[in-house]
């Protein structure tokens, strides 16, 4: 069976709850891991710090990355992901409040696979989450499934 885990990087608990709720409603993920700042995200992905494990662990299918994060911001996390050979091809979707051109250009420049703006209207948010899940977890074929 395919690994259908999603890594959600989100510091706002309200947004976290709403995103998790939306993803669950869309019923595509079999696991959502939530980390709450940039450093935690990097530690989780590279099995470092509190996330150090003994055995190999599969990478998530997709990372949903907020931009405004404590410690290390979203773009910093993305830079680390793209700089490491193990995660260089990992799909990353930026999930941001803003649609500032500057953010979008920087996100794509650093190798984001997609940029989605979180709408205020929760119905629209639900729809976006459903489409995201469907696309990245079902339709999209990742380059390689590997463990870390």
């Amino acid at each position, binding site marked *: 069976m395919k690994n259908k885990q999603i890594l959600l990087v989100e510091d*706002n608990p*309200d*947004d976290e*709850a*709403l995103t998790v*709720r939306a993803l669950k409603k869309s019923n595509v993920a079999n696991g959502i891991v939530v980390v709450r700042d940039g450093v935690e995200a990097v530690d989780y992905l590279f099995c470092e710090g509190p996330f150090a494990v003994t055995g190999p662990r599969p990478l998530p299918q997709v990372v949903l990355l907020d*931009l*405004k994060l404590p410690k290390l911001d979203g773009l910093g996390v993305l830079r680390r992901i793209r700089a490491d050979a193990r995660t260089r091809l990992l799909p990353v979707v930026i999930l*941001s*409040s*803003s*649609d*500032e*051109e*500057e953010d979008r250009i920087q996100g794509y420049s650093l190798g984001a696979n997609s940029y989605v703006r*979180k*709408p*205020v*209207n*929760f*119905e629209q*948010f639900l729809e976006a989450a459903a489409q995201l899940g469907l696309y990245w977890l079902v339709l999209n074929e990742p380059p390689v499934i590997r463990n870390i």
Partner: protein
Amino acid sequence: MGLFGQFFSSGDFQPHGFCYAWNARLVWLHVISDVLIAASYFAIPVVLLWLARKRRDIPFSWLFLLFGAFIVACGTTHLMEVWNLWHAQYWLAGAVKALTAVASVGTAVVLARTIPQLVRVPNLTEWVKANADLEIRIAQRTKELRESNEALQQNRETLGLAQKAARMGAWDRDITTGRSTWTAELEEVFGVQPGAYNDHSHIWPNLVHPDDLPAVDKAVAESLKQVSEFSSEFRIIRPDGEQRWICARGNVIRDGQGQPHRMVGVNIDITERKLAEEQIRLLNASLESRVAERTRDLTNANNELESFSYSISHDLRAPLRTIDGFSLALLEDCSDKLDEAGKGHLQRIRAAAQRMGALIDDLLNLSRVTRTQLNSQTFDLSAVVSDVARELQATQPGRHIAWKIQSGVLATGDSHLLRVAIENLLNNAWKFTSRRAEASIEFGKTQDNGASAFFVKDDGAGFDPTYADRLFGAFQRLHAATEFPGTGVGLATVQRVVHRHGGRIWAESTVDQGATFYFTLPQIDSPGATA
């Protein structure tokens, strides 16, 4: 008897009257004739001598003397004829004749030799004519001289005026003696007494500003050394203490041996120019600093606006999402515990959150119009209008709108911002025609007072022209939100886009008669960019 005695002796000879047989008549005929001839012969030389003395200009006057001598001799021979009528001193008469012969031959020879010269002497008519010609020529030359003198004087006056007007004067300095000649105008510029500037080496250093003197001296020395043109600007301090700026130009003139011996040139009073330059420099400097200050302020304001917008974009929407999201969650999860009124309240909360979300988005768009850099290009605005119209029609395919879009209308400006403007204008037209079963929306270009203006025209609800000035203010709405929804930022955004292009925007309308929005983009009217 000696030779002398024989000379005056009658010897054996008979007096000459004897030959006339002492015929009294014959004797007296000879006597009277000879005496008259002699008298005439003696009178003629006297007249000739008198003439020669009176008219010393007559050429060949010495000839008169010669003639005189010759005629006196002739006269003497005739007197001897009379004398010998009664005396027989024929030796004496012969000697007198011999002398007369010598004088005659001499006169003849001299005359013969002088003839060619005499021939060349002009006659009186010629003299008179030549004289008259000379008079005419002299008069002519005199006239010419007077005219050229007048012209010279005029030139001098003009030059003087020109020098005065240009605040300049000329100088001429002998390098070896140091003597200088200054024109009156130059004396005036330097404020020195007429003729006072005669000793260059002593007066010059007192006139030039001490700070500038070394540089001027160096320029002069260099010019003399190179025998080249000399040019320098310096300050002078006039005897009355006034300081002035001088621009000096000069040249070195060589003597016959090619050695520099004079320097001539002009000095121009450039005080006013220098003052103006200084003023311009000061103005420029203050302008520069003001521009720099303004730029700094603007940059700061822009940076502030940038971070402000960024913060709004990220942080202000998140709570709205929470309000909306959890209101919906409440409606979904606790619907059995809520009555209709409770559900209604939650719907209002959600609607408000969403409206505020829309407001924030519109405000951000408005500020983005100011923040983004203009990338000007000429493009097909009609194509943009058609594109936006298609998108609008797709949101409500059921609406009947007659789109009249003039094709091929070109615009010069930022295509992204102008699209935002067109979106807002068409959105408005779309919104305010929503109550009509059939409506028309038109786009095109028209001439307004000679300038071309773009327009978007609809036949919708229109607006009361009394409030036309409030149309373009942010958050200004002329219709109730229940009537036509909106944030009131759209037209403010359009106006800002047009203003950023240096254009103008205005609208015409009557209630229920539709509205027409006009805008201009100045660039499009420039030659070569017309549609």
